[in-house]
């Protein structure tokens, strides 16, 4: 059993160094631990069992390097979580399981022996990976490649389906999960520490790219899976230069703006960052003001809109305001008054094209039956919706319905043909306001005519 001794040494080396994060120390440690140390039999069998369990789910068909990495990761897990006595005891009491494990273990040991020999022959200077998230990530990526290349996605899925509940909660799965959680946690703490030292950057409006990257997965999920948004007319959004998106507003919470922004980020060839303008009630709310600013949104007023447009940003406005977002269910898809046409004034001044946007599906995410004036006044909200679930179910009532969303982007309405100073022409402003409003209403009607189901589209 020379190979076993060798493995043992390798295992010990990995286990001792898993706690340290220094690569050089790790290399030294593996050199020091080269002569095999006699170990109690129980430990050896535990290691064997552990490795055997791994083969059960992933089979021993993988590249030599990844095998060694798996062993390494295994050792890390071992060091992190020493024992889960109940499952171990059960393993020892069940002779059939032991027998099966032994057979599998021996199969893997053979494989590993071959693998180690091959690695040593190929690259004598090979060093173990660092025990950091990046290293883990690499190891996992390599393993995933090996699995999909040999076994294919379909059979992998079948294998997962065949897993018994008892096997799902075995030691290795838990250890693996714990290791991943620990590393994620440590990584997050590092980021937090750095940010607390003030080592991050924002643009002049306070947009924080790190923050956006952190929250984007949630919004991507809402966009792709939850509301299954289908976006049309993206070719109407210019690749660069200023433009003003004018959209209807609905859904009690201003999530439609976020979805338009995510859609343009995901699908537009230039992947532009949209800056939505929000109403002046939001900056008075704790966290809301902070989150909106960090996500690159800007308080809605003429000065801000004009500055953003002259800086050639893609700006989105919701001229319906509270009247639109707090609409009752019976009034859905009836556009409210488009403000006082301030958005047209700004577009004329900055000579930015106005792009009408129609969002269908957001109206049905919350079913507002009544707006309570008294409650709204009491807590200082501009409106307080009463729905079948809110406020009766508390925070649960805030969960939106998984409707199917459509976002249609219409053809741009140019504003550069009007002479300078047209922003003071009240006739032109009201005319253009009505034109944009009618366009959005027509786009809504077109989409509603085609839509067969609220939830399936």
């Amino acid at each position: 059993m020379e190979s076993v001794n060798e493995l043992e040494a390798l295992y010990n080396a990995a286990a001792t160094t898993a706690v340290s994060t220094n690569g050089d120390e790790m290399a030294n440690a593996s050199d020091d631990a080269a002569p095999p140390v006699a170990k109690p039999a129980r430990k050896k069998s535990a290691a064997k069992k552990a490795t055997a369990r791994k083969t059960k789910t992933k089979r021993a068909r993988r590249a030599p390097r990844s095998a060694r990495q798996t062993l390494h990761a295994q050792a890390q897990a071992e060091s992190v979580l020493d024992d889960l006595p109940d499952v171990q005891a059960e393993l020892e009491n069940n002779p059939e399981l032991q027998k099966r494990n032994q057979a599998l273990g021996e199969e893997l040991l053979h494989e590993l022996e071959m693998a180690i020999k091959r690695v040593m022959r190929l690259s004598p200077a090979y060093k173990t990976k660092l025990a950091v998230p990046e290293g883990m990530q690499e190891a996992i990526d390599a393993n995933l490649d090996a699995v999909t290349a040999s076994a294919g996605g379909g059979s992998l899925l079948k294998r997962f389906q065949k897993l018994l509940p008892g096997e799902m909660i075995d030691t290795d799965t838990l250890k693996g999960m714990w290791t991943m959680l620990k590393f994620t946690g440590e990584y997050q703490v590092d980021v937090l520490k750095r940010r607390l030292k003030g080592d991050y950057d924002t643009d002049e409006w306070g947009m924080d790219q790190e923050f956006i990257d952190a929250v984007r997965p949630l919004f991507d999920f809402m966009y792709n899976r939850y509301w299954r948004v289908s976006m049309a007319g993206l070719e109407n959004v210019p690749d660069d230069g200023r433009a003003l998106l004018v959209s209807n507003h609905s859904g009690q919470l201003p999530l439609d703006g976020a979805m338009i922004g995510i859609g343009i980020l995901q699908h537009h060839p230039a992947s532009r960052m949209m800056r939505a303008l929000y109403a002046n009630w939001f900056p008075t709310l704790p966290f809301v003001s902070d989150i909106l600013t960090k996500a690159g949104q800007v308080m809605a007023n003429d000065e801000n809109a004009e500055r953003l447009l002259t800086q050639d940003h893609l700006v989105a406005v919701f001229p319906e305001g509270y009247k639109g977002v707090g609409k009752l269910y019976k009034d859905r898809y009836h556009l409210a008054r488009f403000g006082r046409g301030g958005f047209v004034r700004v577009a004329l001044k900055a000579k930015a094209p106005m792009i009408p946007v129609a969002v269908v599906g957001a109206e049905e995410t919350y079913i507002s039956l009544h707006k309570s004036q008294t409650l709204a006044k009491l807590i200082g909200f501009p409106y307080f919706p009463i729905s079948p679930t809110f406020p009766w179910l508390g925070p649960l009532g805030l969960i939106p319905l998984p409707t199917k969303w459509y976002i249609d982007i219409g053809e741009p309405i140019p504003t550069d043909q009007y002479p300078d100073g047209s922003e003071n022409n009240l006739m032109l402003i009201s005319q253009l306001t009505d034109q944009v409003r009618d366009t959005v209403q027509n786009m809504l009607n077109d989409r509603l005519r085609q839509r067969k189901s609220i939830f399936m589209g």
Partner: protein
Amino acid sequence: MANERIILVTGAAGYWGNRVATRLLDQDDAHVIGIDDTTPQHTVDGLDFIQADLRNPLLVELLQEEQVETVIHLKFRETLTPSESSFEQNVMGTAKLLGACGEAGVARVILKSSQMVYGARPDNPMFMREDHPFNGNKKYGYVRDWIEIEKYADSFHEQHPETVMTVLRFGNIVGPKADTPMTRFLREEEAITLLGFDPMIQIIHEDDVVSALVHAAADDYPGAFNVAPEKGMPLWKALGLATKLPIPILHPFAYWSVSLGGPRLAPLPLDYLRFPCMGDMQRMRDVLQFTPQYTPEETVREFSAQQRVRKLLGKKSRETFEQDRLRDTIQRRKRLRERGGGPKRARRAAQAE
């Protein structure tokens, strides 16, 4: 000495008066008269110091006799709570001084003010132009005094259009030596912040403040100017750079406790910790033609390094901070060289360094 410029600096015994007078005296063609009601602690070589109160009716005679061309008004007492004595000194002193300047036919008057006069409000534009109304919270002594002074300056400008009136509204001034609301806020052991609010703030270095005042005295720049580096930073980032752990407090509770304990509890009005109050720097760039040399990050880093050195941390950390400071200085000088045709005064100052 025929074309000698005669400049009168009020508040010459104070920090800003001292700094500005020193910088003015470095210029060959300036004769600087300092005026204050107390004797200066640090004497400035070559400063023609006169001990007098600004509210003295004989000030007109002094201005006429000495043929003062430019007045830089820096006498200002910063008090948190509105008090009658500070109002008397700040606002009435300015009113009397402006009256005397009009009477004596002074060519230029330069006032130092703050962007706090715009007030921090939820419906503020992110970058406020100089014509934005003064909505500052008058519960705070210095904010109220600044607003009143600005109002006097406005009416003075209407009555005496021949006098060039320059008002410099600075962002939050931070520096190793200056004592301003922002440095007091950053110097505290615990930085009280409002939970869930992180407004953008503009930070200007004390040296840039002095440079801007000296720059404004060199030529005619009528009107008000916001002066600060264009790019702001989130408040929490400033706290992080100053290695202060922010202590977030729910805002209704914070307002309530401040109203109970008086504004003394918080060195900065709470509104400024809640909503952004930043100035648009277009006029500073195009009309005043002044560019601050320090970035906000450099300013806060230098400030916090000095704070830590003051607390006598170990030798090693002091060296690190010295390194940081030198790196910032090298970067700043490099930027200045790259700009080449930057402001005359700044270039000369860089050469003097």
